[in-house]
Every structure is written in structure tokens, then in C-alpha cells.
């Protein structure tokens, strides 16, 4: 089982992500949060395999949360999702230490393959 955490401030987007995770028998949702600080707490306490986190969020944004996960050397791999696409924002995600980047328009097709790839230790960047 791949243990997955979700962090996004839009309830309806989290619902869509949950529904996508349920397409796979290999994934288990371990926590769902609506800001970066809660996401960080979840990662510290539950150490999920993969954190899917929105780049723009209240309290602590996705980039800052990712940097903290890297700084304290937690094993969770981070997949950043973003409303906007492009190489500039994807590079920001990579610089923060994310192992993957997906635009929200691509989630329905690529969320599960992206989670599987970063879980295997690969990089998955789709600008």
C-alpha cells in the first residue's frame, strides 16, 4: 500500500483527489488537510509515503511546507499540484525539494501515475 496525504484548501478539490485515489487498490489515504501547517503536522506524525500538496495555501504554502519536510529529513516524498502550469513554477517546486509537479488540469489523468512514480523514488514533473 502507498500511504498518501492530501493538502488543499478547497474542499471540492480534496473530494476530487479522494475520488481519484479510490480508483487504485494500492493507495490508502492517511490524512487530509486544508493548510500547509496541518500538512506538516500530518507528515511528522504519520510519515505518509507521499504528500500531495497545493502550491498555494493559507498559513504555510506548499513550497514552504516542502522545504521544511526536506530540512528535517522526513522520508515523505512530496508531489506539488498547482492551478497554473509552466517551467517557472515547476522549477520552484523542484528547488523546494518536491519529487513531482502536476498542474490541476492534468490531475484526472496523471495523479495516480505521478504518486506511483515519486513513491518508487523517481521524479515526475509535468509542466
Amino acid at each position, binding site marked *: 500500500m502507498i500511504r498518501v496525504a492530501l493538502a488543499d484548501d478547497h*474542499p*471540492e*478539490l480534496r*473530494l*476530487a483527489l*479522494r*475520488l*481519484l485515489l*479510490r*480508483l487504485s487498490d494500492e493507495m490508502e489515504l492517511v490524512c487530509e488537510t486544508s493548510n500547509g501547517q496541518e500538512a506538516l503536522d500530518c507528515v511528522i506524525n504519520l510519515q505518509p509515503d507521499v504528500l500531495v500538496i497545493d502550491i498555494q495555501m493559507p498559513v504555510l504554502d506548499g513550497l514552504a511546507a516542502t522545504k521544511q519536510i526536506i530540512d528535517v529529513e522526513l522520508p515523505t516524498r512530496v508531489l506539488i499540484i498547482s492551478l497554473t502550469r509552466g517551467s517557472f513554477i515547476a522549477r520552484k517546486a523542484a528547488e523546494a525539494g518536491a519529487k513531482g509537479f502536476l498542474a*490541476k*488540469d492534468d*490531475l*484526472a*489523468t496523471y495523479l495516480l501515475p505521478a504518486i506511483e512514480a515519486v513513491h518508487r523514488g523517481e521524479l515526475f514533473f509535468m509542466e
Partner: protein
Amino acid sequence: MIRVLIADDFKLLRDVMRVYLERVGDIEVVDEAPDLNDAIERMKALQPDVIIMNDYLPPIDSAQAAALFREQGFSAAVLVIAMNPEFELIQRAFRSGVDGFMHKDEIDSHLAAAIRSVYRGERYLSPKASDVYNGVHE
């Protein structure tokens, strides 16, 4: 094949429903619409068997939209999906010509069954919507 139109202003959720419906053999998504005007145009052009509609289809709610579809003479069965089903909305929706009502969190488990049910002419209420309607959850 049951021909379905998906009307929701949230593209990702339309995509998710499409992914789930592509896994069943008897339902075909003929098109999608992000708002009421688009939905009406596509209903006219494609005459779907079922329309799946968000409880708010900009700029009006699903009960108003269903009443409008009936006025326009569309024969499609109407299935409403809601993030927060509320008793008053469900009741008003059924009175306005909606055929089925479900919670969006049940899309993975109940969407195909709901579509088949309203297509057969039945009134459909999903387990979670039914709990709200019967006062189990306020």
C-alpha cells in the same frame, strides 16, 4: 448505451466522473457543460438520456434548472450531485422535476447505479442523500 451529459462548473470533477463512467460498459458521456447556457445548448443538440448536474449550475440552482429543462420540453432524466445535500434543496429539486439526488462523495460507489436508476424512470436517492432527507444527519 445510456447517453449522459455532465454539467458541472468544476472541470476536475467532470474529468473524475468521466474516468469512472469510462469503466462501465453501458454508459456513454456524450459531452460536458460548465454552466446553464452551455448545458441547454448541448441538451438541444445531443438529446442525452440523462443529465448529471451540480446542485449549483451557474447562474442558478439545480431545482430552478430542472424546472427550466421541463419547460423547454427536454426528456432527459435529471440526476443532481451535491457537496452538501440539504433537506430543503432535495425536496425542492424533486418538486421541480429532478429524478435523482446524490452526494458527490458517492461518485465512486453509486454514480453508475444512480444513472441507470433515473434512466429507468425511477426516483433515486443515494444512501448519504437519503440520510439527510430522512433526518438521520442534519
